[in-house]
């Protein structure tokens, strides 16, 4: 009944991708063409906030790599639109002037941001939040302004506002209604959400009807004027009040269009050869503006397209707010006649079920405590009935992944249910969360479901520890497997390891990890190879965006002499360095040094390497402690310098930042370091696993001891434990969360184990190089710091020649 011209999907968003995936799963042969209007292949628009918040690139958001389309023979056209079609003849006209044959067309044209007709809406500085270009515009503008305003306090508006605030831009959310997310939340939950957003630095203004976007004399955005006569000064306006289905093409084709493109239960439009899926489609009067229903619709559309029976009965709307620090999940109705509630105003948690008269679960709102969200969402989706709503809420808060039904959707971004995850683990014999995410795509979206993916994997493995992520994914070798080869065959170099098992040879990305593994396991017997190191560790400096390097000498404890400061100034003058920067780790950074200049700069500085370029022990920050501070309880400077001297030169799975604070006021920020010592009345506290970078985490109190010397022993034993057990590129906080504080305390604090750790630490410390900058006069290769044609005058410092 179907000819061979195949299916053309118009629109390369999440919907278009979902249709391609669902069709291919059912029919490996039918010709499939995906036409994307944007320049990018399908990417995860749901995570656009990440693009805005932390500079993730569009490539990182890609739903599938190029090979995926090639392997499945899906033709993908980018920067191309469908401009017309002769539906009866089966031809489709594209914006590049070509005509393609297709028996069926699936419209996945999505939606545009709705911009209300406000005066000033055309001003420069007024943007919507819809695609990567919008994000780029927001990022560029947010850096130069005093305040941004987001019009719209729904899901998208809050995510945009949070991302802007996270970039350090003062941000206000302006919302027409008297509560946030009124479509998903009831009044009490909304009332708790507003202060939570304020806590993240987002100024929330409710019941504000924007009347006009005002301009400054230069014609740029200057502020918002509200209907009550008040105003808000801002230089960037993000409009996020809703979506408008993109129905232009459907109209051109003469299809029935109301708010969206009208489809029946088979997702077929008014023309039998044309289907519509996603935000452009209107089914039983509803246009869905969220991601979850897209996957439901795509599955039904794929059945329709492949000649199977299918009926789409609508989706239960579910929403998860992807804002770090605010846990919020909603499903179905937010309010109803029968409501069951467990709330704690102090803990700021709110858990509610909405029930029908017969006990059918109609909706759930979880704020601040989203335990059991998947179970409750599934109850809403499947219309479970319960006699005792409170019991169901309590049960959900205790529920483990084991109790989820197979139909429960675990990953709402990519529409993956528990059954599919468990099936993939069994079929593929998957051993790590990393693999499960890669294969099933569960957790590859916003990532909030990854803990459940891990839990399901643990269940399938019947308690066996999860295989750590492969250290060499190409050769499928885990760290443990590689360590066994190193031990059994006494492997002493990365090349030898590659010859033994193939690790590190295909893509090379793992070579620094292999190098660390060998260095840690073989200590003094390890043969270094520079090709296995990142450029930073070949030339002992940190590569910058323009290919120059930064030079950060060791300044133990952040204490520097007047003479050293003079040398910094002299070096900066002599080499005309463009910037001298005080670092966050209490050091001095010389920027803009070329590779060829490095040896001479080090020579003139006459200070040892600060290892600021390496996965190694970094700084030990200190406060002035009892030496000067009137509140000091401990001599932070002496203890910090001593600790830094003890650890310096050691490579670690990831960088290790430390601090010593002379009292709990924590001026040196020891609570948020990988290793932090804090003087308290009568002793010292040792914190580990703290972080204040992309992740912010207060360290766990590993031990409280009587003296600084004991504190140092505990710190060094922990460092060695982490060196031995941490995965490559796993920070101490990740390690702590993976194994738990109890396990670390057991491994480090037991007197015998501590003594053994300290012995191995001493061996490793003796084998390491505390100052690789000495290679300025003893390079490992004559062209270590040079290109083939480097100017001879800049070649290695004279001592290099002299000492040879």
């Amino acid at each position, binding site marked *: 009944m179907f000819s061979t011209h195949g299916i053309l999907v118009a629109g390369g968003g999440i919907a278009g991708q979902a249709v391609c995936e669902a069709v291919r799963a059912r029919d490996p042969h039918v010709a499939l063409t995906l036409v994307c209007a944007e320049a990018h292949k399908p990417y995860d628009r749901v995570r656009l906030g990440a693009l805005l918040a932390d500079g993730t*690139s569009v*490539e990182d958001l890609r739903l599938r*790599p*190029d*090979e995926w389309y090639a392997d499945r023979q899906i033709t993908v056209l980018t920067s191309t639109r469908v401009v017309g079609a002769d539906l009866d003849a089966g031809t489709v006209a594209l914006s590049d002037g070509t005509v393609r044959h297709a028996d069926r067309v699936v419209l996945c044209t999505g939606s545009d941001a709705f911009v209300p007709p406000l005066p000033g809406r055309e001003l420069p500085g007024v943007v919507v939040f819809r695609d990567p270009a919008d994000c780029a515009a927001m990022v560029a503008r947010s850096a130069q302004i005093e305040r941004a305003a987001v019009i719209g306090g729904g899901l998208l508006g809050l995510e945009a506002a949070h991302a802007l605030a996270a970039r350090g831009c003062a941000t206000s959310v302006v919302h027409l209604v008297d509560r946030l997310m009124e479509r998903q939340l009831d009044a009490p939950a909304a009332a708790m959400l507003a202060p939570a957003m304020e806590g993240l630095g987002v100024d929330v203004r409710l019941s504000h009807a924007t009347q006009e976007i005002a301009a400054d004399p230069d014609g740029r955005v200057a502020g918002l004027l509200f209907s009550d006569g008040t105003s808000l000064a801002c230089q960037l306006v993000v409009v996020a009040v809703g979506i408008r289905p993109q129905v232009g093409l459907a109209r051109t084709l003469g299809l029935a269009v109301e708010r969206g493109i009208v489809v029946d239960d088979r997702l077929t439009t008014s023309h039998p050869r044309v289907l519509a899926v996603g935000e452009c489609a209107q089914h039983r009067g509803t246009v869905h503006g969220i991601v979850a229903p897209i996957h439901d619709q795509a599955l039904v559309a794929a059945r329709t397209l492949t000649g199977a029976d299918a009926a789409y009965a609508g989706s239960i709307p579910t929403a998860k707010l992807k804002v770090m620090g605010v846990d919020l999940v909603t499903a179905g109705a937010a309010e109803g006649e029968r409501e069951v509630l467990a709330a704690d105003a102090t803990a700021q948690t709110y858990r509610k079920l909405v029930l029908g008269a017969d006990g059918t679960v109609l909706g759930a709102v979880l704020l601040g405590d989203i335990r059991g969200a998947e179970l409750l969402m599934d109850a809403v989706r499947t219309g479970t009935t319960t006699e005792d709503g409170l019991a169901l809420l309590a049960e959900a808060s205790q529920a483990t992944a084991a109790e989820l039904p197979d139909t429960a959707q675990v990953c709402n971004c990519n529409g993956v249910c528990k059954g599919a995850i468990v099936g993939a683990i069994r079929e593929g014999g998957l051993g790590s969360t990393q693999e499960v995410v890669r294969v099933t795509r569960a957790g590859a979206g916003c990532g909030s479901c990854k803990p459940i993916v891990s839990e399901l994997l643990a269940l399938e493995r019947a308690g066996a520890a999860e295989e750590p992520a492969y250290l060499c994914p190409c050769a499928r070798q885990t760290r443990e497997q590689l360590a066994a080869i190193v031990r059994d065959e006494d492997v002493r170099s990365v090349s030898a390891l590659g010859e033994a098992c193939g690790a*590190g*040879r*295909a*893509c*090379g*990305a793992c*070579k*620094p990890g292999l190098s660390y593994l060998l260095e840690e396991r073989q200590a003094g017997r390890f043969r270094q*190879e*520079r*090709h*296995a*190191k*990142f*450029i*930073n560790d*070949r030339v002992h400096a940190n*590569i910058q*965006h*323009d*290919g120059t390097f930064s030079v950060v000498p060791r300044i133990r404890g952040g204490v520097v002499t007047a003479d050293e400061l003079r040398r910094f100034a002299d070096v900066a003058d002599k080499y005309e360095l463009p910037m001298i920067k005080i670092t966050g780790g209490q050091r001095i950074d010389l920027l803009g040094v070329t*590779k060829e200049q490095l040896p001479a700069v080090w020579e003139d500085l006459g200070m040892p390497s600060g290892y600021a370029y390496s996965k190694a022990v970094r700084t030990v920050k200190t406060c002035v402690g009892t030496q000067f501070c009137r509140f000091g309880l401990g001599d932070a400077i002496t203890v910090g310098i001593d600790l830094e001297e003890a650890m310096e030169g050691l490579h670690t799975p990831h960088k290790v930042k430390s601090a010593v604070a002379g009292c709990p006021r924590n001026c040196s920020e020891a609570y948020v370091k990988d290793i932090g010592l804090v003087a308290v009345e009568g002793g010292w506290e040792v914190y580990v696993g703290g972080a204040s970078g992309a992740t912010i985490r207060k360290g766990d109190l590993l031990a409280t001891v009587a003296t600084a010397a004991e504190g140092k022993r505990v710190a060094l034993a922990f460092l060695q434990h982490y060196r031995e057990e941490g995965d490559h590129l796993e920070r101490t906080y990740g390690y702590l969360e993976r194994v738990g504080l109890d396990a670390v305390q057991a491994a480090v604090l037991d007197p015998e184990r501590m003594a053994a750790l300290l012995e191995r630490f001493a061996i490793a410390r003796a084998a390491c190089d505390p100052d690789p900058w000495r290679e300025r006069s003893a390079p490992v*290769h*004559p*062209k270590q710091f*040079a*290109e*083939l*044609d480097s100017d001879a005058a800049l070649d290695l410092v004279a001592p290099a020649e002299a000492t040879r």
Partner: protein
Amino acid sequence: MSPVLSETGFVAVGAAADVPALEGRSVLVDGRRIAIFRLPDGWAATDAACPHRGGPLQDGIVADHCVTCPLHNRRFDLRTGRQDGGDDAVAVHEVFERDGMLWMRLA
């Protein structure tokens, strides 16, 4: 001036010994910065600037047949110049070693 291998257009660009195993070094040829890599089974040459943000490919980690840009980890096949998992490509040039000297010709 670099000596030219007559008629073929190859120019001498430096000593083979100046490029360590599985590393790269760059050289200016006809105003273009070229990265030359020593591979387990021979040599490879590409434009030195990564097409993404101009990162120095000669400073990248080299595996059997590819290099990874040190700035943002774009990876390129040294035989074809094509980006692994992406649409970018870097120009690949001819290079060989004779009597300890490296000779190359721009594509």
